[in-house]
């Protein structure tokens, strides 16, 4: 019996050994490769390599926006996590958070590192003592780090940390990654430190924890406020933007996501060209439609579509030895070349005396390039962030508004050449058509379809053809023409001139013009003189002028020498040469024939321009702007639009001066003349073939 039980005992040992061996076989030989891969992955440390943002340059290569070196204070996410998740005031703090164990383990490793430095090797007896000391040292360093960050970040430190926390945690999710790389990265808490501050922080590094001073870039705008609305600005991505632009894991592999998706503290273009040329991504601004090629696109493919932002790189290194496993270099952002001439922009901006607001747009006629696009008032892009609160509050002068593309104005009489062409092109009038202006359309009642001459106490214009009506800016003629065009033709022709859509440079601020689809007769009459329900931007007006100057060829204006925003729509309008010539003749007479509304603008006691200008003045009624700060803005919008030289148009121009007590010719005209003079000086208009009668 005893020996039998010995056998049973040995059998039990044997069976248990078999179970253990089976388990070992399962863990080591069946799952071994997976476990090995998991370890290898944990041994690997990934560091993001930042990519500098591309430059924005004008047509001559002057740098309008560039990255300037500076330093960032970055905090390890695990330290940040411990702060935010351990904060009793944080309602979303969760001690059972899946990442908590890893963050605590990170802290343990920090303490152990301190401990090793404290303890002479081979003295295990002092281990517990060293642990206590190391923990104290760690707590002190943690406090120092927090204090230092508070010194630089101010009271927002908690908010900044919480924002980063929320964004990184948002990356974990059903469609996100289980352990996003961001959780082991250092995140920017304070950015834009200069050399002195960076050295000051570095000299304290020995007593800080989880903190890094990293070289970084700050966006600098050498021309400060010039073209500020066009250049735009950058900022940290908002909470919603990453969701809209980032690729999801079902759309691209994880590496691609890590390379191009926006992280919590990434910079993104917020306005103007900075936004237009941001580059990838990713999704259209309006909807959630994903550019289809981006799905499962390779990194190389993506690299060919980069914009200003570029693509970050990654350095995969051994955690311990630092040996590089793999380096994916960052790709610097593409430079953007604008069609703008910043010096011309400067000249034009200076035409606005202090307190005067408005906009000037200059287009090159042959290609439709934007040479200058001024919107006044401006602001200094370099101080934009500091001044933002004040800028956004100003509801009298709206300095943030890009007037040239996003302010809708009634174009006033500058619309008359367009209406004239609509009338001629659609056949409701011919170049010989004559209308007798008695001074009023129906009867001489104040403010009821009267011509502007009558309001000034003069008689009507008498019989006028379309050329004469333009020269005299006759309201009665164009009331009548508007009525003739009617709802069937007028909106269609406005559409042909591009008024129904944003002008087309691609700037995110652009707005489409506004006019009714089915205007009644009254509205048509008013729109015939550019009033009433017609509202368009200065760029629309300038482009209409360029279209006329090209003899009736519509081209959408472009802002880029190449790349995004370069695509141009061009279309031949159904106009004959004679019809365009009649309108051009009228616009020439406006400026160059005695009695033209802008004759005195170009013929007077000043240096002659040396080129003939075709133009049209405009004086648009507008509602007074009243707001709470007590400054009311009243008056008219003074317009001048045209092109030069008359016989060989090279530039088209639109000028609007806001809220003036007077006519387009008095205010906008001289500004336009000086703007054209600047264009001549900058070489965009070359005087040749000066016809007789040009000079006084």
């Amino acid at each position, binding site marked *: *019996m*005893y*020996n039998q*039980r*010995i*056998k*049973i*005992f*040995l059998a039990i*040992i044997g069976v*248990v*050994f078999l*179970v*253990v*061996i089976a*388990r*070992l*076989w399962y*863990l*080591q*030989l069946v*799952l*071994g*490769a*997976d*476990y*090995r891969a*998991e*370890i*290898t992955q*944990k*041994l690997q440390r990934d560091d993001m390599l930042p990519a500098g943002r591309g430059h924005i340059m004008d047509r001559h290569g002057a740098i309008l926006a560039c990255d300037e070196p500076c330093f960032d204070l970055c905090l390890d996410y695990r330290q940040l996590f411990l702060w935010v998740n351990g904060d009793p005031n944080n309602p979303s703090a969760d001690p*059972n958070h*899946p990442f*908590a*164990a*890893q963050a*605590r*383990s990170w802290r343990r490793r920090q303490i*152990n*590192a301190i*401990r*090793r430095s404290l*303890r002479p*090797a*081979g*003295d*295990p007896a002092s*281990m*517990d003592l060293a*642990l206590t000391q190391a923990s104290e040292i760690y707590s002190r360093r943690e406090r120092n780090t927090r204090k230092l960050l508070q010194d630089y970040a101010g009271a927002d430190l908690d908010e900044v940390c919480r924002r980063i926390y929320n964004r990184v945690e948002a990356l974990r999710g059903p469609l996100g990654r289980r352990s996003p790389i961001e959780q082991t990265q250092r995140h920017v808490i304070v950015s834009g430190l200069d050399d002195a501050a960076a050295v000051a922080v570095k000299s304290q590094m020995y007593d800080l924890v989880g903190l890094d001073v990293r070289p970084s870039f700050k966006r600098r705008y050498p021309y400060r406020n010039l073209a500020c609305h066009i250049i735009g600005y950058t900022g940290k991505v908002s909470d919603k933007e990453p969701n809209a632009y980032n690729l999801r894991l079902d759309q691209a592999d994880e590496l691609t996501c890590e390379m191009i998706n926006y992280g919590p503290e990434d910079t993104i273009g917020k306005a103007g060209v900075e936004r237009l040329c941001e580059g990838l991504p990713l999704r259209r601004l309006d909807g959630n439609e994903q550019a289809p090629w981006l799905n499962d696109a390779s990194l190389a493919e993506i690299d060919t579509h980069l914009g200003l932002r570029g693509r970050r790189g990654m350095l995969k290194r*051994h*955690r*311990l*030895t630092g040996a590089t496993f793999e380096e994916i270099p960052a790709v610097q952002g593409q430079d953007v070349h604008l069609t703008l001439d910043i010096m011309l922009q400067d000249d034009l901006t200076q035409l606005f005396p202090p307190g005067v607001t408005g906009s000037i747009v200059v287009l090159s006629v042959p290609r439709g390039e934007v040479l200058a696009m001024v919107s006044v008032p401006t602001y200094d892009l370099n101080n934009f962030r500091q001044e933002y609160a004040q800028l956004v509050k100003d509801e009298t002068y709206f300095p943030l508004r890009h007037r040239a593309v996003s302010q809708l104005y009634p174009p006033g009489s500058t619309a008359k050449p367009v209406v004239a062409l609509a009338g001629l092109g659609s056949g409701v009038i011919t170049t010989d058509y004559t209308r007798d202006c008695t001074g009023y359309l129906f009867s001489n009642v104040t403010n009821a379809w009267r011509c502007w001459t009558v309001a000034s106490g003069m008689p009507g214009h008498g019989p006028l053809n379309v050329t004469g009506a333009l020269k005299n800016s006759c309201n009665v003629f164009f009331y009548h023409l508007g009525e003739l065009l009617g709802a069937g033709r007028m909106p269609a022709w406005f559409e042909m001139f591009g008024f129904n859509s944003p002008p087309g440079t691609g700037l995110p601020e652009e707005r489409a013009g506004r006019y009714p689809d089915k205007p009644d007769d009254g509205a048509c009459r008013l729109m015939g003189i550019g009033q009433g329900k017609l509202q368009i931007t200065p760029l629309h007006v300038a482009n209409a002028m360029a279209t006329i100057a090209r003899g009736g060829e519509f081209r959408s204006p472009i802002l880029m020498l190449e790349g995004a925003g370069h695509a141009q729509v061009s279309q031949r309008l159904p106009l004959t040469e004679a019809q365009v010539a009649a309108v051009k003749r009228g616009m020439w007479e406006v400026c160059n024939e005695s009695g033209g509304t802008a004759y005195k603008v170009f013929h007077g006691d000043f240096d002659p321009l040396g080129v003939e200008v075709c133009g049209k003045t405009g004086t648009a009624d507008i509602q007074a702007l009243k707001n709470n700060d007590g400054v009311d803005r009243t008056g008219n919008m003074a317009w001048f639009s045209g092109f030069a030289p008359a016989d060989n148009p090279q530039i088209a121009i639109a000028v609007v001066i806001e809220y003036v007590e007077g006519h387009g010719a008095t205010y906008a005209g001289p500004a336009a003349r000086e703007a054209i003079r600047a264009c001549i000086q900058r070489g965009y208009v070359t005087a040749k073939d000066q016809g007789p009668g040009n000079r006084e």
Partner: protein
Amino acid sequence: MKDTLKTYLRYTSWPIILAMIALMTWGIVAIRVSEQSDPSITGFASKQMVSALIALAAFVVATVVPYHRLGRLAYFFFGVTLIVLVGVLFTEGSKGSRRWIPLGPIDAQPSEVAKLAFILMLAWYLRYRDNYRRLGGLVVPFVLTVVPMGLVLIEPDLGTSLLFLPTLYFMLFMAGAKLRHLLGIVAVATALVLLPVVKKLPEGAARPPLAYGVVTIGPARYAVLAAPLAVMNGYQVTRVEVWLNQEKTKSTDQGRQLGQSKMIIGAGRLMGTGDWNDGEVYFQMLPEDHTDFIFSIIAGQWGFLGCLGMLAIYGVIFVLGMEIAVITNDPFGRLLAVGVVALLFSQLVINVGMTMGLAPVTGMTLPLVSYGGSSLVVNCAALGLLVNVGQRRPVLLAPKPFEHDREG
């Protein structure tokens, strides 16, 4: 004298000694590996070497003194051990448990000594009896087991306390206790362990882990759970929970250790990690790798083949130990040999099982391998007793009574 020594050396079981020394050496190398990788432990391998020398001395002493003399002192040893186990409860303790008695430069762990004293006492008690073949006769051995077990459990040292029951069972089994009694006790104990009890939950408390269910009666909520869960510490419940839900809990603080351990074992694959650097870096992510989780280091460093080798060495000790139990015809010697084998075997299984997720994590060293002087000295002394029994085999010309072969 010379002849005595010759006989002594001839009947000494050298394979057991070789196996023991091999395991101790392997252990020191493994401790060195974990020490290399973890900055928080240094000098452990050299300390273990000193312990190994002391342990070898203890082994020699345990082989030289005739084991019957030790047997006569068994009750005395056991009594002293119990007193020390009570005494240790009044020490200051560290890391939340009171297991160590400071003895000059080293801390002794009385619970380790208690294992040996328990085997001696039980073998001495059972040697000439047969009353344990009746159910009533099992009461005294069980009481003698429960007393030291309880004291160790209070320290608390759950792992060591769990050793007493399997050792008792193996010894009773080998001494000839009726199988139906032993199995019956297991069945009753299992039923008691799983017995549902009702515990009132505090206001707003979450559902307790591993509960059978939660009942709401009127305003109060009651949890229905297995009896031990109602009295166990929170962390002990968590360990059981981690063990039962290994995949779900591997990223929690509690489940991490087991998860890391399994990962390191698995990463060993057939031949071990090979790349010292990788192992080094990763081993430091495993807490307690030089003591309770030394087997993970061994599996990670030397792979499946290394593990088979280590199990084979243990197998040599167990088989030869059982052979000694067969050859000797002294009842005390037989039970002592069985007790030593049962003790080592239980430790091995519980420790290896917990590192691989086959058993819940309890504090338990891998015998002869894990860092820890007390454990090493006591296990060596236990093997010394085993060899001791083997040396004093009966010199008989005729076959032993009732035995027809020596295969055992």
